[in-house]
């Protein structure tokens, strides 16, 4: 009976594992949707689904005249220094800081994040 753990087999096996691992990591990198950089990527990273959220953002933007992404992003960034996104949007609701997206009543900070996602996707 031949020895299963020949030097040749060990080398081939290790090589195979390395190839599969590299393919997996690379594929994941290749499959992950990449977005053009924007000045507010730090904010957009808080969104789970930027494409879907950009749709919401388009609807939010339809109700906001003179949307200035730079000042809005600074404003949102400042808000998020005071707590988690969950805390900030809850506070928005309590205080009545709301925006509409094609009729959907959503917390203002979430709406502005979505609007920034829409701007970034434009």
């Amino acid at each position: 009976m031949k020895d299963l753990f020949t030097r040749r087999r060990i080398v081939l096996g290790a090589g195979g594992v390395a190839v599969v691992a590299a393919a997996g990591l690379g594929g994941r990198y290749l499959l992950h949707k990449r977005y053009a950089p924007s000045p507010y990527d730090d904010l957009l990273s808080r969104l789970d689904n930027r494409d879907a959220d950009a749709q919401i953002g388009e609807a939010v933007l339809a109700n906001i005249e003179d949307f200035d992404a730079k000042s809005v992003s600074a404003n949102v960034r400042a808000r998020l220094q005071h707590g988690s996104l969950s805390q900030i949007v809850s506070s928005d609701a309590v205080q009545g800081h709301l925006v509409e997206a094609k009729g959907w009543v959503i917390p203002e900070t979430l709406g502005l994040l979505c609007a920034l996602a829409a701007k970034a996707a434009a």
Partner: protein
Amino acid sequence: MSAFIDARTVPEGTVLEPDLAIVGAGPVGISMALALANTPLHVVLLESGGMTFDAKTQALYDGAEVGDPYLSLQASRVRFMGGSTNIWGGWCRPMDSIEFEERSWMPHSGWPFGVDALKPYYPRAQVLCEAGPWLYEKAESWPQEEQPTVALGDGGMVTRWFQFSKMRNSTLPTHFGERYAEDLKRVRNLSTYIHANVTRLGLDSGGAKINELDVATLSGRHFKVKPKCTVLAMGAVEIARLMLASNDVMAPGIGNAHDLVGRFFADHPIPRDTATLVLFDGKLAPYYMHNQVIHGAIMRAGLFPSEKYRRADHVLDSSITIENPTKLDDLGQAALAATASALGVDASQATAYSLGCGIEVTPDPDRRFTLDTGRDALGIPKLKLHMRIADSDFAHFRKTLTELGRQLLASRTGMLRLNAKERGQWLAELDWGNHHMGTTRAHVDPRKGVVDGNLQVHGISNLFVAGNSVYPTYGAVNPTVNLVAMALRLTDHLKGQLR
């Protein structure tokens, strides 16, 4: 027991001389007639229709409409014994005290009496409507473990309850004609005439008293009633018509010296699918969507603006009901996912529902009835309705819906979509409550109201009006139990006056 008298068999030229004539045997007229049983007063109840629907009688309601879309004047009411309770949905709820108050943000508001004047009469009205034990207020404080309500946290919207009429031995709401016909026949001091149409209110030459009522049948009979006192109880449209058309002594019509009769007409707009409600956990007690028997009453929960919120934010009244489960479109799914994620709540079981509503409108003197050129089969001028609904009325309700959406988010319970914004969107899905109100509004000042606090027509000592037509403002709740309470209050007043 005496049968109803078919007016078509009354000899031509007959003159009846009762103490009191009640014109119209709907819920108001029937409730008053029953409440006057076993009094020394001889009462005549005059009903245009018979015991069942008749197309020729119903056609007497025909009229014209201009302006914003509204229901056909024939289709929105019923002309036979029992009146519009023959087609009502049985929804009952008393008005809030705020409805009666003069409010700075509500033009033409302020009743000549408060809710306290009606409170003694609500229990009896509830019994007549067969709406079960009086649970409206008690239900608001039922424990959550017993009757869970949608968690809304602090804010303007609260869960409140409707109760429902159910006719004895029936699954239908109480049809007052069918239900109380035998009771009416047992009232010894009452004579009920069917197929009897009052075609003219005859004023004395001084214009201060009603001397006689002309009555006609579609078969061509005519007779007169000369009562000591008359109550008009035919509904807000026909009351205005008869008062305007009875213009042989006073050209503007009866009680119309200040050009108020027929003005301020109102109904409750019911925009369909007005909003979409999403509950994150998908849990909704069944009594929000369907009537349920609870503690012996048939009940349904709704969402209402509290009196405190209405005072603080100057919004009109409304009632919101949860109707049917519905599906979300792609944007709705995205909004739900993003909002739930941002709030940190699980929405894997989220369920969406369409919302129904009834909303209050602002009193408007130019939403009115006038006499038209055509005449009906009895020779009475037909009516023309000038219908209007203000954008601001929709805006008030949208503000209230937004408050509901805010509370849902703040309590991490759910979220809301407002389905209508532009006027065309509201009108496209607009239905109506068939609650005709306002055409002979009550006010202490004859320049501002047709009737006074006792529902007596200003300046005419023996003419009274009962029913929705006296509403100066309209609230948003279904009127029947309220107008029956008002009728019972008027009955007590008349018992004293005619003693």
